[in-house]
């Protein structure tokens, strides 16, 4: 116990000395690795945000809007609405009036709607029945049925918002966004390992006499390694902290600004950001430790 405490103390003191004795190189390493962590953070947040936007689209993909003729009476619409509600394939139906359609369009970022209406003098958007299916298969069948309803507007060519390709396309986009995001992060992690190894090379060089003596008098390999590993972990944590602080602020700021201008349907995901920071700091410590371990093996042969 006493011996363990003394070993830990020795490793911590030596790691701190390593770090401060070549402060310039240490800080350069931390800064470079911090930039990499920043890039990893940006990549992962972008991936996450794209996923979120697309997932929202996907969740709406089992919904179709059935566009209605302007001439149909509310009564007739209510009849058909009721008939659809009885259908076992239907999860829900709601009516969206022409006025509501304008509000929704504006929310979704088509800010010119109101002015368009005042120029044209009338509301060009149709009323619709918003139809939610229980399954995608049911959706396809329902789409075929509602197209034959007399209330459905046939003048424009697309009677409903149904798009059979949207789901596979979205899933592919989500998949590839994730593949690219994670590959890029992995590549950046490997680059940071190389940077750490080179920082440790300097630290090893500075401590070479000390290491030589340690080996000569019979210090164990781990006794020699730990100070460098701790130094690497400390540097990695600093780098991750530096990188994620910048990423975090940027993320919140950018999403705020973006939402002020276009409707993304997503706001800053606080829990995800917190998890990301925790994970990146842990990854930074891990990369720092592993990088140092590899560096020590390479340049010290212990």
């Amino acid at each position, binding site marked *: 116990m*006493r011996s363990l405490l*003394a070993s830990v103390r020795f490793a911590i003191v030596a790691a701190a000395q390593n770090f401060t004795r070549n402060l310039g190189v240490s800080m350069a390493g931390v800064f470079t690795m911090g930039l990499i962590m920043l890039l990893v953070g940006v990549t992962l947040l972008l991936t996450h945000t794209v996923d979120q936007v697309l997932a929202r689209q996907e969740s709406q993909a089992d919904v179709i809007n059935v566009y209605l003729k302007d001439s149909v009476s509310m009564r007739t619409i209510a009849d058909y609405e009721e008939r659809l509600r009885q259908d076992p394939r239907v999860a829900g139906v709601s009516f969206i009036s022409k006025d509501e359609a304008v509000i929704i369009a504006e929310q979704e970022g088509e800010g010119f709607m109101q002015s368009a209406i005042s120029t044209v003098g009338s509301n060009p958007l149709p009323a619709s029945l918003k139809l939610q299916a229980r399954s995608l298969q049911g959706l396809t069948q329902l789409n075929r049925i509602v197209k034959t309803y007399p209330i459905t507007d046939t003048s424009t060519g697309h009677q409903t918002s149904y798009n059979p390709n949207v789901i596979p396309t979205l899933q592919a986009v989500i998949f590839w966004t994730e593949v690219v995001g994670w590959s890029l992060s992995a590549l950046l992690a490997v680059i940071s390992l190389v940077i750490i190894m080179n920082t440790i090379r300097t630290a090893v060089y500075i401590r070479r*006499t000390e290491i030589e003596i340690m080996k*000569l*008098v019979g210090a*164990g390999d781990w006794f020699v390694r730990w100070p460098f590993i701790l130094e690497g972990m400390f540097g990695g944590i600093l780098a991750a902290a530096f990188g994620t602080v910048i990423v975090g602020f940027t993320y919140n700021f950018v999403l705020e600004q973006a939402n002020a201008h276009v409707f993304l349907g997503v706001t800053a995901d606080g829990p995800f950001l917190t998890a990301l920071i925790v994970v990146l700091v842990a990854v930074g410590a891990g990369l720092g430790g592993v990088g140092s371990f590899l560096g020590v093996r390479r340049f010290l042969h212990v």
Partner: protein
Amino acid sequence: MSLAAILPPPPAVRPVPGLRPVISFHGVSKTYPNGTQAIRDLDLAIYHGDFCFVVGASGSGKTTLVRLLIREEVATTGRIFIDGQETTRMPRRRLPKLRRKFGIVFQDYKLLPRLTVAQNVAFALRVTRPGQRHLREKVEETLWIVGLEDKLNKFPDELSGGEQQRVAIARALVHRPRIFLADEPTGNLDPDTSWGIVQLLLQINHRGTTVVMATHNREIVDLCRRRVIAIENGRVVRDEAEGAYLREGEATI
């Protein structure tokens, strides 16, 4: 033609019956990766409590011999035993324990310039026996043995060469090794200071530690009349119980 070829074969130092050598080499050769054969088919036995000089010209293989002893280099062929344990095929994880049997000093003292005399000596214990009790007493006692009890808080660059070598000796001695190795410990020192260092090594030997000193300092070897192992081109050419640097009657080269 080498001296070994001209002169009659050396009288071997007789093995002590029933006593196991502390150090023994059996047909040991060392060829460096670049092809240099530094040690060739060398046999050697050193007993507990011996004091022996390893002499030979520069490049004859003295340092390689020392490095083989502490397994800093691995023998290319042959077997080396330390305390009855074969070290030639010893796994890496057991090397620290092997090295703690030795105390070792070099021509350059290898002191840590940022540490004081006492800290330099304590360093050896702190990295091999962390948390050791009575560290300060042990360090002070060892520095007293080498005659530096009044220099505890000096830094290496405030000391003379001889004093620095004494600090190195104290560091090698602080864990009470069984075998003390000195590779040209007086190589950088003037004759008087050198003599003081050798006196100290004799004193250490007198307390029961086996001492092996590689040197090409002729005066010292001749004055001491101790065991002399002469090597040339990596071979033992002479091994005498009370020898001189050169063979009796041999001309100075």
